[in-house]
Protein backbone atom coordinates (compact mmCIF):
# COMPACT_ATOMS: atom_id res chain seq x y z
CA UNK A 1 0.00 0.00 0.00
CA UNK A 2 2.81 2.35 0.90
CA UNK A 3 4.47 1.51 -2.40
CA UNK A 4 1.35 2.48 -4.34
CA UNK A 5 1.08 5.79 -2.49
CA UNK A 6 4.74 6.57 -3.15
CA UNK A 7 4.25 5.78 -6.83
CA UNK A 8 1.16 7.99 -7.05
CA UNK A 9 3.15 10.80 -5.45
CA UNK A 10 6.18 10.37 -7.72
CA UNK A 11 4.16 10.20 -10.94
CA UNK A 12 1.96 13.11 -9.95
CA UNK A 13 5.16 15.07 -9.35
CA UNK A 14 6.55 14.06 -12.75
CA UNK A 15 3.27 15.06 -14.38
CA UNK A 16 3.35 18.41 -12.62
CA UNK A 17 6.95 19.36 -13.29
CA UNK A 18 7.85 17.75 -16.61
CA UNK A 19 7.25 20.65 -18.96
CA UNK A 20 7.61 20.10 -22.70
CA UNK A 21 6.09 16.69 -23.38
CA UNK A 22 6.88 13.00 -23.07
CA UNK A 23 10.67 13.15 -23.35
CA UNK A 24 10.75 15.50 -20.37
CA UNK A 25 9.51 12.65 -18.15
CA UNK A 26 12.66 10.56 -18.73
CA UNK A 27 14.85 12.40 -16.17
CA UNK A 28 12.08 11.86 -13.59
CA UNK A 29 12.03 8.13 -14.30
CA UNK A 30 15.82 8.01 -13.98
CA UNK A 31 15.52 9.63 -10.59
CA UNK A 32 12.87 7.08 -9.50
CA UNK A 33 15.17 4.27 -10.54
CA UNK A 34 18.04 5.72 -8.47
CA UNK A 35 15.94 6.61 -5.48
CA UNK A 36 13.65 3.60 -5.10
CA UNK A 37 15.15 0.91 -7.30
CA UNK A 38 11.73 0.07 -8.78
CA UNK A 39 13.45 -0.81 -12.03
CA UNK A 40 17.03 -0.94 -13.29
CA UNK A 41 18.61 1.56 -15.69
CA UNK A 42 18.73 -1.28 -18.18
CA UNK A 43 14.99 -1.85 -17.94
CA UNK A 44 14.52 1.90 -18.36
CA UNK A 45 16.28 1.59 -21.73
CA UNK A 46 13.89 -1.21 -22.70
CA UNK A 47 10.92 0.84 -21.56
CA UNK A 48 11.99 3.80 -23.67
CA UNK A 49 12.47 1.54 -26.71
CA UNK A 50 9.04 -0.08 -26.23
CA UNK A 51 7.35 3.29 -25.64
CA UNK A 52 8.80 4.61 -28.87
CA UNK A 53 7.73 1.57 -30.84
CA UNK A 54 4.14 1.36 -29.65
CA UNK A 55 1.29 3.76 -30.36
CA UNK A 56 0.36 6.46 -27.87
CA UNK A 57 2.12 9.35 -26.18
CA UNK A 58 5.56 8.35 -24.90
CA UNK A 59 5.14 9.71 -21.36
CA UNK A 60 1.91 7.77 -20.93
CA UNK A 61 3.45 4.58 -22.29
CA UNK A 62 6.39 4.79 -19.92
CA UNK A 63 4.19 5.47 -16.91
CA UNK A 64 2.08 2.42 -17.71
CA UNK A 65 5.19 0.29 -18.14
CA UNK A 66 6.73 1.32 -14.81
CA UNK A 67 3.44 0.85 -12.95
CA UNK A 68 2.88 -2.56 -14.44
CA UNK A 69 6.38 -3.94 -13.85
CA UNK A 70 6.71 -2.53 -10.34
CA UNK A 71 3.35 -3.72 -9.04
CA UNK A 72 3.00 -6.73 -11.36
CA UNK A 73 -0.59 -5.89 -12.21
CA UNK A 74 -2.74 -3.91 -14.60
CA UNK A 75 -3.87 -1.80 -11.68
CA UNK A 76 -0.30 -0.57 -11.26
CA UNK A 77 -0.18 0.71 -14.84
CA UNK A 78 -3.54 2.39 -14.49
CA UNK A 79 -2.62 4.05 -11.19
CA UNK A 80 0.71 5.48 -12.38
CA UNK A 81 -0.74 6.70 -15.67
CA UNK A 82 -3.68 8.42 -14.02
CA UNK A 83 -1.27 10.04 -11.53
CA UNK A 84 0.89 11.29 -14.40
CA UNK A 85 -1.99 12.88 -16.33
CA UNK A 86 -3.95 14.24 -13.36
CA UNK A 87 -1.85 17.45 -13.02
CA UNK A 88 -2.25 18.13 -16.76
CA UNK A 89 -5.99 17.77 -16.59
CA UNK A 90 -6.24 20.08 -13.60
CA UNK A 91 -3.84 22.71 -14.95
CA UNK A 92 -5.29 22.70 -18.46
CA UNK A 93 -8.89 22.95 -17.21
CA UNK A 94 -7.92 26.08 -15.28
CA UNK A 95 -5.94 27.51 -18.20
CA UNK A 96 -8.74 26.67 -20.67
CA UNK A 97 -11.22 28.51 -18.51
CA UNK A 98 -9.04 31.61 -18.32
CA UNK A 99 -8.19 31.41 -21.99
CA UNK A 100 -11.88 31.38 -22.91
CA UNK A 101 -12.37 34.60 -20.98
CA UNK A 102 -9.39 36.48 -22.37
CA UNK A 103 -9.36 35.02 -25.86
CA UNK A 104 -11.14 38.00 -27.37
CA UNK A 105 -8.89 40.57 -25.71
CA UNK A 106 -6.61 42.47 -28.05
CA UNK A 107 -3.56 41.66 -25.95
CA UNK A 108 -4.10 37.91 -26.01
CA UNK A 109 -4.82 38.03 -29.74
CA UNK A 110 -1.54 39.85 -30.28
CA UNK A 111 0.35 37.33 -28.17
CA UNK A 112 -1.02 34.50 -30.31
CA UNK A 113 -0.29 36.45 -33.48
CA UNK A 114 3.37 36.01 -32.57
CA UNK A 115 2.99 32.51 -31.16
CA UNK A 116 1.25 30.64 -33.96
CA UNK A 117 4.06 30.92 -36.53
CA UNK A 118 6.61 30.05 -33.82
CA UNK A 119 4.73 26.83 -33.01
CA UNK A 120 4.97 25.84 -36.68
CA UNK A 121 8.75 26.19 -36.28
CA UNK A 122 8.73 24.04 -33.11
CA UNK A 123 6.78 21.27 -34.80
CA UNK A 124 9.36 21.19 -37.60
CA UNK A 125 12.13 20.97 -34.99
CA UNK A 126 10.29 18.23 -33.10
CA UNK A 127 10.02 15.99 -36.15
CA UNK A 128 13.35 16.88 -37.78
CA UNK A 129 15.08 14.03 -35.93
CA UNK A 130 12.60 11.53 -37.31
CA UNK A 131 12.99 12.87 -40.86
CA UNK A 132 16.78 12.71 -40.68
CA UNK A 133 16.95 9.20 -39.21
CA UNK A 134 14.28 7.83 -41.53
CA UNK A 135 15.35 9.32 -44.86
CA UNK A 136 19.06 10.03 -44.55
CA UNK A 137 22.08 7.89 -43.90
CA UNK A 138 24.07 10.39 -41.87
CA UNK A 139 27.39 8.50 -41.40
CA UNK A 140 27.54 7.70 -45.13
CA UNK A 141 26.30 11.19 -46.05
CA UNK A 142 23.74 9.82 -48.52
CA UNK A 143 20.01 9.31 -48.65
CA UNK A 144 18.36 6.00 -47.82
CA UNK A 145 17.07 5.14 -51.29
CA UNK A 146 14.15 2.80 -50.56
CA UNK A 147 12.62 4.88 -47.73
CA UNK A 148 12.99 8.04 -49.85
CA UNK A 149 11.24 6.49 -52.86
CA UNK A 150 8.54 5.14 -50.56
CA UNK A 151 8.19 8.57 -48.95
CA UNK A 152 7.66 10.32 -52.29
CA UNK A 153 5.22 7.70 -53.60
CA UNK A 154 3.16 7.65 -50.37
CA UNK A 155 3.15 11.45 -50.23
CA UNK A 156 1.80 11.76 -53.75
CA UNK A 157 -0.85 9.10 -53.10
CA UNK A 158 -1.85 10.67 -49.78
CA UNK A 159 -2.14 14.24 -51.08
CA UNK A 160 -3.46 13.65 -54.61
CA UNK A 161 -5.69 10.59 -54.46
CA UNK A 162 -9.26 11.00 -53.30
CA UNK A 163 -11.69 8.20 -52.59
CA UNK A 164 -15.32 9.16 -53.15
CA UNK A 165 -14.36 12.85 -53.14
CA UNK A 166 -12.78 12.41 -49.74
CA UNK A 167 -9.16 12.69 -48.71
CA UNK A 168 -7.45 9.55 -47.41
CA UNK A 169 -7.30 9.49 -43.59
CA UNK A 170 -3.95 9.06 -41.80
CA UNK A 171 -4.91 5.60 -40.46
CA UNK A 172 -4.60 3.66 -43.75
CA UNK A 173 -1.29 5.45 -44.40
CA UNK A 174 0.09 4.15 -41.08
CA UNK A 175 -1.21 0.61 -41.70
CA UNK A 176 0.05 0.45 -45.32
CA UNK A 177 3.45 1.83 -44.40
CA UNK A 178 3.79 -0.78 -41.62
CA UNK A 179 2.95 -3.57 -44.08
CA UNK A 180 5.36 -2.16 -46.68
CA UNK A 181 8.05 -1.92 -44.02
CA UNK A 182 7.66 -5.64 -43.30
CA UNK A 183 7.46 -6.67 -46.97
CA UNK A 184 10.45 -4.56 -48.03
CA UNK A 185 12.39 -5.51 -44.87
CA UNK A 186 13.25 -1.87 -44.26
Amino acid at each position, binding site marked *: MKLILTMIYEFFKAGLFAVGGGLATIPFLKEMSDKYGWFTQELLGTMIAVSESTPGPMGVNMATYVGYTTLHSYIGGIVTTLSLVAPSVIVICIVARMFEKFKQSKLVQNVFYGLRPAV*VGFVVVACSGLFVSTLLDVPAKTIKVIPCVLYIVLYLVFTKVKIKEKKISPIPVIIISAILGILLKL
Partner: protein
Amino acid sequence: MNLVKKLVQLYAAWFKMGLFTFGGGYAMLPMIQNEVIEKHHWATEEEVMDYYAIGQCTPGVIAVNTATFIGYYQAGIIGAIVSTLGVITPSLIIISIIASVLTNFAEIEIVQHALKGINVGVCVLMTASILKMAKSNIKDTIGMVICLTAFVLAYFLKISTVWLVISAGVAGVVIQAFRAKGSVK
Protein backbone atom coordinates in the same frame (compact mmCIF):
# COMPACT_ATOMS: atom_id res chain seq x y z
CA MET B 1 -28.65 12.51 -23.61
CA ASN B 2 -26.81 14.95 -25.84
CA LEU B 3 -24.04 15.13 -23.28
CA VAL B 4 -23.70 11.34 -23.21
CA LYS B 5 -23.51 11.25 -26.99
CA LYS B 6 -20.88 13.97 -27.01
CA LEU B 7 -18.83 12.16 -24.36
CA VAL B 8 -18.96 8.91 -26.31
CA GLN B 9 -17.83 10.79 -29.43
CA LEU B 10 -14.98 12.44 -27.54
CA TYR B 11 -13.84 9.15 -26.00
CA ALA B 12 -13.98 7.29 -29.33
CA ALA B 13 -12.18 10.04 -31.25
CA TRP B 14 -9.35 10.37 -28.73
CA PHE B 15 -9.04 6.59 -28.40
CA LYS B 16 -8.51 6.45 -32.16
CA MET B 17 -5.96 9.26 -32.04
CA GLY B 18 -4.06 7.54 -29.23
CA LEU B 19 -4.07 4.25 -31.10
CA PHE B 20 -2.64 5.58 -34.34
CA THR B 21 -0.07 8.05 -33.04
CA PHE B 22 3.51 6.84 -32.99
CA GLY B 23 5.94 9.01 -31.05
CA GLY B 24 3.32 11.10 -29.32
CA GLY B 25 3.02 14.85 -28.99
CA TYR B 26 3.42 16.53 -32.32
CA ALA B 27 3.19 13.27 -34.24
CA MET B 28 -0.48 13.36 -33.33
CA LEU B 29 -1.04 16.41 -35.53
CA PRO B 30 -2.19 14.51 -38.67
CA MET B 31 -4.74 12.58 -36.61
CA ILE B 32 -5.90 15.77 -34.88
CA GLN B 33 -6.33 17.55 -38.20
CA ASN B 34 -8.34 14.61 -39.49
CA GLU B 35 -10.54 13.89 -36.46
CA VAL B 36 -10.80 17.13 -34.51
CA ILE B 37 -10.62 19.75 -37.27
CA GLU B 38 -12.09 18.13 -40.37
CA LYS B 39 -14.45 15.45 -39.08
CA HIS B 40 -15.95 16.83 -35.88
CA HIS B 41 -15.17 20.56 -36.28
CA TRP B 42 -14.23 20.78 -32.62
CA ALA B 43 -11.47 23.32 -33.32
CA THR B 44 -9.82 25.28 -36.13
CA GLU B 45 -6.19 25.00 -37.29
CA GLU B 46 -5.41 28.24 -35.44
CA GLU B 47 -7.01 27.02 -32.22
CA VAL B 48 -5.01 23.78 -32.30
CA MET B 49 -1.84 25.90 -32.63
CA ASP B 50 -2.93 27.93 -29.61
CA TYR B 51 -3.42 24.74 -27.57
CA TYR B 52 -0.03 23.44 -28.69
CA ALA B 53 1.61 26.70 -27.68
CA ILE B 54 -0.02 26.60 -24.25
CA GLY B 55 0.64 22.85 -23.92
CA GLN B 56 4.32 23.57 -24.55
CA CYS B 57 4.60 25.80 -21.48
CA THR B 58 2.30 23.88 -19.16
CA PRO B 59 3.33 20.64 -17.46
CA GLY B 60 2.54 17.24 -18.85
CA VAL B 61 2.38 15.23 -22.01
CA ILE B 62 1.42 17.41 -24.99
CA ALA B 63 -1.08 14.92 -26.42
CA VAL B 64 -2.88 14.78 -23.08
CA ASN B 65 -2.87 18.57 -22.77
CA THR B 66 -4.41 18.94 -26.23
CA ALA B 67 -7.04 16.27 -25.48
CA THR B 68 -7.93 18.02 -22.21
CA PHE B 69 -8.22 21.39 -23.95
CA ILE B 70 -10.51 20.20 -26.71
CA GLY B 71 -12.58 18.03 -24.35
CA TYR B 72 -13.03 20.97 -21.96
CA TYR B 73 -14.40 23.26 -24.65
CA GLN B 74 -16.77 20.57 -25.91
CA ALA B 75 -18.21 19.35 -22.62
CA GLY B 76 -16.57 21.05 -19.63
CA ILE B 77 -14.50 19.27 -17.01
CA ILE B 78 -16.17 15.92 -17.65
CA GLY B 79 -15.36 16.32 -21.36
CA ALA B 80 -11.74 17.03 -20.48
CA ILE B 81 -11.53 13.91 -18.31
CA VAL B 82 -13.26 11.66 -20.84
CA SER B 83 -11.00 12.87 -23.70
CA THR B 84 -7.90 12.26 -21.60
CA LEU B 85 -9.08 8.78 -20.63
CA GLY B 86 -9.72 8.11 -24.33
CA VAL B 87 -6.22 9.10 -25.40
CA ILE B 88 -4.51 7.02 -22.68
CA THR B 89 -6.62 3.85 -22.96
CA PRO B 90 -4.80 2.34 -25.99
CA SER B 91 -1.45 2.86 -24.21
CA LEU B 92 -2.75 1.18 -21.05
CA ILE B 93 -3.92 -1.88 -22.94
CA ILE B 94 -0.98 -2.24 -25.32
CA ILE B 95 1.78 -1.55 -22.79
CA SER B 96 0.24 -3.86 -20.17
CA ILE B 97 0.21 -6.68 -22.70
CA ILE B 98 3.78 -6.01 -23.83
CA ALA B 99 5.10 -5.65 -20.28
CA SER B 100 3.51 -8.95 -19.29
CA VAL B 101 4.39 -11.19 -22.21
CA LEU B 102 6.57 -9.43 -24.77
CA THR B 103 9.39 -7.75 -22.90
CA ASN B 104 11.64 -8.15 -25.95
CA PHE B 105 9.01 -6.46 -28.14
CA ALA B 106 11.29 -3.74 -29.48
CA GLU B 107 13.88 -6.30 -30.59
CA ILE B 108 11.51 -8.51 -32.61
CA GLU B 109 12.63 -8.35 -36.25
CA ILE B 110 9.18 -7.98 -37.80
CA VAL B 111 8.35 -5.19 -35.36
CA GLN B 112 11.50 -3.33 -36.35
CA HIS B 113 10.66 -3.60 -40.05
CA ALA B 114 7.09 -2.47 -39.43
CA LEU B 115 8.34 0.48 -37.38
CA LYS B 116 10.76 1.60 -40.05
CA GLY B 117 7.85 1.52 -42.48
CA ILE B 118 5.64 3.43 -40.04
CA ASN B 119 8.39 6.06 -39.65
CA VAL B 120 8.23 6.70 -43.40
CA GLY B 121 4.44 6.93 -43.12
CA VAL B 122 4.69 9.39 -40.23
CA CYS B 123 7.13 11.53 -42.27
CA VAL B 124 4.59 11.61 -45.11
CA LEU B 125 1.73 12.59 -42.80
CA MET B 126 3.83 15.18 -40.97
CA THR B 127 4.94 16.81 -44.24
CA ALA B 128 1.32 17.22 -45.33
CA SER B 129 0.26 18.39 -41.86
CA ILE B 130 3.05 20.93 -41.50
CA LEU B 131 2.32 22.44 -44.92
CA LYS B 132 -1.35 22.74 -44.06
CA MET B 133 -0.59 24.17 -40.64
CA ALA B 134 1.90 26.66 -42.10
CA LYS B 135 -0.66 27.83 -44.63
CA SER B 136 -3.27 28.67 -42.01
CA ASN B 137 -0.91 30.03 -39.33
CA ILE B 138 1.73 31.96 -41.26
CA LYS B 139 -0.18 34.78 -42.82
CA ASP B 140 2.44 37.41 -43.63
CA THR B 141 6.17 38.09 -43.94
CA ILE B 142 6.48 38.76 -40.22
CA GLY B 143 4.93 35.36 -39.52
CA MET B 144 7.48 33.76 -41.83
CA VAL B 145 10.32 35.55 -40.03
CA ILE B 146 9.02 34.46 -36.60
CA CYS B 147 8.67 30.86 -37.77
CA LEU B 148 12.21 30.73 -39.20
CA THR B 149 13.72 32.46 -36.16
CA ALA B 150 11.95 30.03 -33.82
CA PHE B 151 13.21 27.11 -35.89
CA VAL B 152 16.83 28.32 -35.95
CA LEU B 153 16.91 29.13 -32.23
CA ALA B 154 15.32 25.82 -31.22
CA TYR B 155 17.15 23.59 -33.68
CA PHE B 156 20.66 25.01 -33.84
CA LEU B 157 20.97 26.83 -30.52
CA LYS B 158 18.78 24.34 -28.61
CA ILE B 159 17.06 27.12 -26.68
CA SER B 160 14.22 25.79 -24.54
CA THR B 161 10.84 26.12 -26.22
CA VAL B 162 9.33 27.55 -23.04
CA TRP B 163 11.53 30.65 -23.46
CA LEU B 164 10.85 30.80 -27.16
CA VAL B 165 7.10 30.65 -26.61
CA ILE B 166 7.33 33.57 -24.19
CA SER B 167 9.57 35.57 -26.56
CA ALA B 168 7.32 34.92 -29.55
CA GLY B 169 4.31 36.09 -27.54
CA VAL B 170 6.11 39.28 -26.54
CA ALA B 171 7.23 39.77 -30.16
CA GLY B 172 3.61 39.47 -31.28
CA VAL B 173 2.51 42.20 -28.87
CA VAL B 174 5.39 44.53 -29.80
CA ILE B 175 4.91 44.09 -33.55
CA GLN B 176 1.17 44.70 -33.34
CA ALA B 177 1.79 47.80 -31.21
CA PHE B 178 4.12 49.20 -33.87
CA ARG B 179 1.60 48.33 -36.52
CA ALA B 180 -1.20 50.14 -34.69
CA LYS B 181 1.03 53.21 -34.39
CA GLY B 182 1.92 53.06 -38.07
CA SER B 183 -1.70 52.92 -39.11
CA VAL B 184 -2.55 56.16 -37.32
CA LYS B 185 -2.38 58.80 -39.99
